[in-house]
């Protein structure tokens, strides 16, 4: 596996959801989930978990630093670096002028000089401006220098479709970045995995593009301790099942689980895999699932054209063709700029009812046998 100096997460993390998220979360994660059993365990929001990860890693390793717009005194637009400048100073939590390609290049140079920068894009979409530095330098320099220079940085920020943020603030950059050789793409989705994955990403010697979702920062859950560091290349089995393998990531995980809620009532038993590692894919987990269920549905927020689902679909087709009873179903966003109007925006992304319908269509006849 990739040489990130990480520790495998506790075995419990691989099976179903973490205790803090045993309940199916609504597709609008701003709501609290009221479960009495969790009253004793401390629940925090995802932004706090990310902040804890950054804080712990900065404390552990003096070469870790943060740079980006408004990350210092303002604490980050999504509070992921709230107050850290007071603890670590203005140099280690660095406010930069507005130039994404500029501070991305700066992060590359600092990484090549021995630091481990965490470069924050205020919105992933703005990192399109940083594409040159990410692609031509960050991704390439370890290779083109023959391994003499490395760029161990983390590029993180919120992406995905929010609530009426308009097309330019609703980009899904994993589509664009996935082709870049030399970078790893990781998408977090829960409080627990966000903290554990970010810690792993910071410790990795590879450049990691770390996708958070703009609507998940206030999701509540339990985070792991300072020693819980996830494996960056391992997918998460959210729900074990037998009927169909649903592959998803980021906020679509919650959409899928909402659909699963309905599906279970109808007698289905879907297996849900959160990809986590968008590049490279965890083919071991993916193929184990498909060999079991023989049906694959991909639910993503990327556009249909050129998204993560497109790549995954191709790879499944090439390597698992004879394990499939059905073509790979791909539920993706429409190939349109994301509209501002609420209803239009909702119509461009995948809704849970579409997931339900896809499962019914693909699994279909077996329900009769169950009933």
């Amino acid at each position, binding site marked *: 596996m*990739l040489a990130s100096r990480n520790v495998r997460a506790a075995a419990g993390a691989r099976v179903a959801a973490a205790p803090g998220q045993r309940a199916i979360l609504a597709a609008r994660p701003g709501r609290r989930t009221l479960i009495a059993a969790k009253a004793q365990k401390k629940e925090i929001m995802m932004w706090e978990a990310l902040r804890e990860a950054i804080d712990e890693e900065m404390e552990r390793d003096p070469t870790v630093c943060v740079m980006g717009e408004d990350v210092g005194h303002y604490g980050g637009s999504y509070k992921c670096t709230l107050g850290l400048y007071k603890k670590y100073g203005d*140099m280690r939590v660095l406010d930069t002028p507005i130039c994404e390609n*500029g501070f991305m290049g*700066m992060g590359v*140079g*600092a990484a090549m000089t021995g630091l481990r920068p965490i470069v924050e894009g205020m919105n992933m979409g703005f990192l399109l401006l940083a594409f040159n530095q990410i692609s031509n330098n960050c991704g390439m320099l*370890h290779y083109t220098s023959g391994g003499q*220079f490395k760029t161990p940085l983390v590029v993180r920020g919120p992406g995905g479709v929010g609530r009426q943020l308009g097309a330019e*603030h609703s980009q899904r950059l994993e589509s664009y970045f996935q082709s870049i050789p030399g970078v790893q793409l990781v998408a977090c989705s829960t409080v627990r995995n966000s903290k554990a994955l970010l810690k792993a990403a910071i410790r990795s010697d590879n450049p990691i593009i770390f996708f958070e979702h703009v609507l998940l920062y206030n999701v509540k859950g339990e985070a792991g301790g300072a020693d819980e560091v996830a494996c960056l290349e391992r997918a998460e089995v959210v729900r074990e099942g037998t009927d169909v393998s649903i592959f998803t990531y980021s906020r679509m995980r919650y959409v899928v689980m909402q659909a699963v809620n309905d599906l279970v009532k109808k007698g289905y038993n879907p297996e849900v895999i959160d990809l986590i590692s968008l590049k490279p894919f965890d083919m071991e987990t993916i193929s184990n699932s498909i060999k079991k269920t023989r049906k694959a549905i991909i639910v993503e927020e990327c556009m249909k054209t050129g998204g993560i689902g497109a790549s995954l679909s191709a790879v499944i087709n090439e390597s698992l063709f004879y394990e499939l009873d059905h073509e790979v179903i791909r539920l993706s966003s429409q190939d349109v700029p994301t509209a501002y109007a609420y209803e239009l925006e909702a119509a461009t992304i995948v809704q849970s009812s579409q997931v339900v319908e896809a499962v019914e269509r693909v699994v279909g006849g077996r329900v009769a046998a169950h009933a």
Partner: protein
Amino acid sequence: MRPRGCKLLARAARALGNAESSALAALHSGSSSSSPQGTLRRLHTSPSAAAEANTTTTTPTCPSPGDAFLEVPGGKLPFTSAIQFVGGSDSPAPTIPCYRTIDSAGQDVPDAQVPYPLGQDLALRMYTCMARLQTMDTLFYEAQRQGRFSFYLTCQGEEATNIGSAAGLDDKDMVFAQYREQGVLLWRGYTLDQFANQLLGNAQEPGKGRQMPIHYGSPELAYQTISSPLATQMPHAVGAAYAYKMDRLPQVSVAYFGDGASSEGDAHAAFNFAAVLGAPTLFVCRNNGYAISTPAHEQYKGDGIAGRGPMYGIPTIRVDGGDVRAVYNAVVAARARALGLGSGSGSGSPEGSSGGGGAPGPVLIECMSYRCGHHSTSDDSTRYRTSDEMRAWRARDPVARFRTWLVRRGWWDEAQEAVLRRTTRVQVLEALDAASRVAKPPLSTLFTDVYASLPPHLAAQSAQTLDFVRRHPTICPPDVPVQ
């Protein structure tokens, strides 16, 4: 703050700019720093301020009585009653003059300030390096024309800029070059064998044949691997300087770039960031008059690149790039200034120079010269400039100029010149021959170093590729081993 407020705030931040969003944040959340000025981001103007975690900004909170100034977050600005535009062709800013210590005839400029005089040893070391660079460039260029490797570019006309600047740096100062700075590598000790290995992409070159020719890199010599896109190295240099500053190391980073590259957005970003952050970076612009076929007067309208420096708050000097002693002096002085040490301790400090004491920060040096050769072996510059122009500039060869200066002092003569050129020529040819006998890197290294270690999908691709080649051995050229 409620989630919706968070998102609205993020959008507002993008739309309105950060200072106002800080004020909005203060208003929204009722944070402890209730005055808008209290939430303003601090500029890193001094190392002590930057190092301390908890000092607050010192912008004034109340406008002064009366209307003497306009006091806004953007600055404290005097008023004028005149409606007057500055800059542009109507009222151009004064042209920044060019620092020079040796004239075109190889004679000392009588009143030149030379805070760092060249002793004989240093002068000869610089000259022999310039001459070797010139010979090496000529031979490698010809070798490419003969088909021995695919690409080359020379730094002819810029030998003084290369060597003068390299000599003025510390060996550990990290260099972020563009692609026409092989003289810096030569100065630091990159051998002719190493040059030849990289040009031929053989198994002995540390880049493992991954990059095209002239894309050298050497961590040992503090020279970052060249990356083709222009000006991307400039923000890198600022990042390195930031790392040095954070670790309190007495190092500067150096970004070389051309007049054409200075038009890139990355150049602007690097200047601005370095100035704002007080990063100890030397920006060395090789203004050689051409960006492939685009002459400088079609590249910019202002006073070159030096004219921009002061506008960013960067101390700037313009130098005769063909005068190796001037370049050397400017770089030594600039380096000290970048580290916040003032103008250094050379004998006869230039009077009138503000010491620049205390605060680290960037310095911009624009070296004016002429690109004597074609842009590269892929270019034929006779298509866009006259042979007369090129001939006139060859007569102003910086190597010849310095040689004349040395000969006047009795430190060099024709006999030594002939020996140097002959032995260099032999060494270059030997290096090329030796490099061409080394095998290329094996095909099995094609997939390594993409990541820190080989991931499953690349291991699979590698296995497929090697298997295919073993089954079709004629596909692989004879000098490329498979494993």
